[in-house]
């Protein structure tokens, strides 16, 4: 049994074996007591949790104390709840015990998932068939909008461009870095850390940084880095983010800058897992370093490349922050996720927002499926 399996094995507490009472009345009485305990204990545990929660909300004490108590209740409370439930299960009649126990352990997670994931998803689908204020049923009208509106069509076109450009460039550049870093005799980890660093920046933060690079001033001195360079070569400053359709490319650069590190780290690990003796065998077979890369290394890590690609496609499909911060979706830079937020929260048309969300969701499913399939295939090889 693996360590992990051991961890999730429920602690099977043998019910205390009482001296079997002789009289049937006593036996029946005991069962009733047990049953009541089984119901009471979890209820008491839950009530205590609930009361402490109420207290935390109402109490007028130092915030630090509240935080400490909240952490304690959060961590130990959940533990206590599980313990109480397990206690209750052990007091149940033997026939029920083992069929009830799994639900007791999985139950809380299922409840939380249903409330925060399943319900919103179903509700979104429902909303997508209603009008702006979710009052009357409008059939497929919102979906018609998704595929006919000019802004939406541009968003779909742009998102497709993002899907094609960002993952392929990131993977290509990341792979290049991974291979080159692997050849370094010293400083490999420093070089890789530097390239990985942008991953730690939020999308908004990165956008602000690139905002300074692309900056254009209508009046006064130019402060943007790019325009500074252009002027250095005696060129005229350009309003970079208004240059359709190339402004899209400038936005993608931000994403590429951030995702390359991710691609590099994963691919670097994959490259290192190619056994040395296979590379040596290829060398002896007469392959040059370039041939070794294309014909031995790359095929060996292909499944990892696909996983990185698909993971990135999912991230790209959800891109919103960059566009929102940089151009606000103006100048033909709309993307699907940005449109979704716009229709939900700014144009207050829940039906259209929901329809866009559903389309986005459906677009992600096949990518997800490929990802999971590839992931499984890779697990099998190991």
């Amino acid at each position, binding site marked *: 049994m693996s360590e992990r399996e051991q961890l999730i094995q429920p602690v099977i507490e043998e019910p205390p074996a009482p001296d079997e009472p002789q009289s049937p009345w006593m036996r029946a009485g005991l069962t009733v007591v047990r049953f009541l305990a089984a119901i009471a204990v979890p209820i008491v545990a839950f009530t205590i949790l609930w009361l402490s929660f109420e207290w935390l909300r109402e109490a007028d004490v130092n915030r630090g104390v509240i935080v400490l108590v909240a952490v304690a209740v959060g961590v130990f409370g959940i533990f206590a709840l599980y313990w109480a439930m397990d206690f209750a299960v052990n007091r149940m009649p033997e026939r029920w015990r083992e069929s009830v126990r799994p639900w007791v352990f999985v139950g809380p997670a299922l409840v939380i998932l249903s409330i925060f994931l399943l319900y919103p998803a179903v509700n979104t689908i429902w909303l997508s068939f209603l009008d702006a204020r979710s009052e009357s049923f409008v059939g497929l009208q919102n979906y018609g909008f998704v595929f006919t509106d000019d802004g939406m069509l541009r968003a779909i076109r742009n998102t497709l461009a993002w899907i094609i450009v960002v993952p392929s460039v990131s993977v290509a550049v990341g792979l290049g870095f991974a291979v080159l870093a692997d050849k370094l005799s010293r400083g490999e980890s420093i070089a890789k850390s530097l390239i990985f660093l942008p991953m730690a920046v939020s999308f908004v933060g990165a956008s602000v940084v690139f905002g300074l690079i692309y900056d254009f001033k209508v009046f006064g001195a130019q402060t943007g880095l790019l325009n500074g360079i252009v002027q250095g070569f005696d060129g005229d400053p350009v309003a970079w983010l208004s240059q359709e359709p190339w402004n899209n490319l400038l936005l993608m650069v931000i994403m590429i800058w951030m995702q390359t590190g991710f691609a590099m780290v994963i691919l670097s690990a994959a490259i290192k897992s190619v056994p040395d003796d296979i590379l*040596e*065998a290829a*060398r*002896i*077979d007469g*392959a040059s370093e370039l041939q070794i890369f294309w014909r031995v290394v790359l095929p060996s890590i*292909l499944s990892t490349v696909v996983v990185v690609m698909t993971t990135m496609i999912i991230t790209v499909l959800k891109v919103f922050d960059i566009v929102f911060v940089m151009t606000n979706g103006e100048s033909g830079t709309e993307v699907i996720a940005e449109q979704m937020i716009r229709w939900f929260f700014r144009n207050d048309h829940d039906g259209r927002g929901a329809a866009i969300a559903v389309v986005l969701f459906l677009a992600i499913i096949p990518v997800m499926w490929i990802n999971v399939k590839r992931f499984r295939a890779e697990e099998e*090889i190991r």
Partner: protein
Amino acid sequence: MAQISMEGLGKIYPDGTRAVGDVDLVIEDGEFLVLVGPSGCGKSTILRMIAGLEEISEGKMSIGDLVVNDIPAKDRDIAMVFQNYALYPHMSVFDNMAFGLKLRKMDKGEIKRRVEEAAEVLEITEFLQRKPKALSGGQRQRVAMGRAIVREPKAFLMDEPLSNLDAKLRVQMRTELGRLHSRLKTTTVYVTHDQVEAMTLGHRVAVLKAVTAKRPDNLQQVAPPSELFYNPANLFVAGFIGSPAMNMVNGHLEGSGDQVYAVFGPHRLKVEKKALERHPGIEDHMNKELVLGIRPGDFEDARVAVGGEDRQMEIDVEVTEVLGSETFVHYSLPLAPVVTPEIEELLADSGGDVTTLGDTSRFASRISSDVEVIPGGKATVVVDTAKMHFFDPESGKRIGFRPGAYHTA
């Protein structure tokens, strides 16, 4: 096909440790040479230097007429079989074998012909379209061999190719390897730590030892298997080759003329003249400390031996191993064990040190299975003293060692 020669070959790693030193070795065209030695003796390093996978720090290496010191592995035109097979996991068996030929832009028909021919020889034709993952260890081993064969290279290099196979398959593949070589007659360098493989496969066997600060040379002796057995150059070779290992004991020779006796503890054995003749200059070592060596096979139980009353030893049997065709008898002589640097290295290789020897000399003798020997009982064995070995306890060298002496004696 080509001759491989090394002159003063050495390998020093960047951190300053020396792995190989002072190797002078000529591997003849078409020869099957085995490099054997305990782990850490540098045998794989030498092989990798021939292959070009390891840089040469000292000396000169040539394959054929070409000095290859600065020629990269891909241009050396040699093929290598790795311990873990090193097959390309994403290629079929056919593509694995054809890879080297495709890189050389060989004609497709010729590639197909060569691969199919090799596959037939190795009996893997039915697996050609499979991926390595779907093959057993033995089959993968054959594919690795096939990949080397189709190249028709100047030399085959094999790095413990059989060590990942189970015992039975290993014996079978060993025989096939021998057969394959006598068919292809390609120069082969074979690395192993298994002395049985070394003795059965090699035309010549090079016995290596780890380099030490004091003795920065690995090569102990390069000779045909039988010479290693009968004419070991030193205590290291004597102790490494042969299983069970040669019995060694501190003692001396006394007497003169026809009446020379080997004396160790209470035992006094008359030494046959032939043994003295095989150690020229032994006269200078009379009455001086020597290490006496007797192979376990050079004993017989007194009840079935013919003659040899003056070559007998009384022993207290500790353990017997009855193999049917013969019986091994293990016992100890109450004499301090032979301890020399070589012996310590041999012990270290089998995971022990001097203390595991205790304060007795452990002996093993092979006797006929016709007579019964009881553990805990007594027995009398006769020693074939014509085949005794004498070593200098200081240098560990065989007295009067001459290479090739076994054949001329």
